[in-house]
């Protein structure tokens, strides 16, 4: 773990890993979505709209996984002062928020023809909307903290850790409360999704996860480069003065 902590070593690996993750993810997710759009049979109850599964479920998974990335990296930052951890936490925020927004938008579009409504304030939908607002808050806080330096970064990290409480709430919302959203299809005990849907769904999820990882690496490189450029300009300004 600490071998990766060195930014120079990280950059050497990320230089080829970023495009590798992005390209493989785009190809895999593209194939899975193409298959899901044209090749699977309509569902027994909801018919053709079942295809939205392949967009909605990976986005929901990455919306939650994104916050767990923020929380894990924030913990590493607070507990071990890991030099790249704060950068990693900030890098996961934008892709996490984008996937959460995609999950909410596609869920709404899916709800209209199946449930008969664009939106309801049930436990699952409400807690997912809370997650999107947590992302907005975290992005604003972390950006402001980065401009003001060291001490403030801890505030964003604590926010990232505390916000993680919402993730198990989202996950359990359909079990704890009567909700319009159905209970989980994939559990520890197995899956109630037919294999003809499950295989492209898992492929789309893996592909989207690779895209997510690639975007996190690209964001980390961008944030690191900004940091290094600003440090150099500051040094030069000091030397000139």
């Amino acid at each position, binding site marked *: 773990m600490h071998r990766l902590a060195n930014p120079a070593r990280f950059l050497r690996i990320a230089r080829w890993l970023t495009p590798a993750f*992005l390209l493989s993810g785009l190809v895999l997710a593209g194939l899975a979505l193409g298959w899901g759009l044209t090749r699977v049979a309509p569902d027994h109850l909801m018919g053709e709209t079942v295809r939205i599964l392949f967009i909605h479920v990976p986005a929901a998974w990455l919306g939650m996984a994104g916050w767990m990335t923020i929380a894990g990296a924030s913990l590493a930052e607070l507990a071990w002062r890991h030099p790249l951890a704060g950068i990693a936490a900030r890098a996961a925020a*934008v892709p996490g928020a984008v996937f959460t927004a995609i999950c909410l938008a596609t869920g709404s*579009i899916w709800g209209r023809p199946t449930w008969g409504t664009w939106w309801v304030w049930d436990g699952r939908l409400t807690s997912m909307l809370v997650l999107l607002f947590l992302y907005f808050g975290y992005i604003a806080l972390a950006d402001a903290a980065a401009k003001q330096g060291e001490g403030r970064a801890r505030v964003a990290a604590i926010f990232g850790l505390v916000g993680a409480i919402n993730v198990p709430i989202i996950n359990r919302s359909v079990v704890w409360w009567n909700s319009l959203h159905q209970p989980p299809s994939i559990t520890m005990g197995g899956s109630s999704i037919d294999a003809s849907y499950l295989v492209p769904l898992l492929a789309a999820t893996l592909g989207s996860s690779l*895209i997510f990882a690639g975007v996190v690496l690209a964001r980390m490189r961008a944030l690191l480069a900004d940091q290094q*450029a600003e440090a150099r300009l500051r040094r030069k300004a000091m030397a000139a003065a």
Partner: protein
Amino acid sequence: MREALDPWNFVIAAFAIGIGGTLAMVAWSWLTMRRAEARRDATRQDRAREL
């Protein structure tokens, strides 16, 4: 009376939002990364007077 909506409108809309949003995010993160690294590399070469 039961509602009869064309499911394909909804499927296409959801795929457009999902794919469009993901591609826009990938393009944005790649371009900002390239720009940030180019700026850093420019400061690395000793051209402080020109900046």
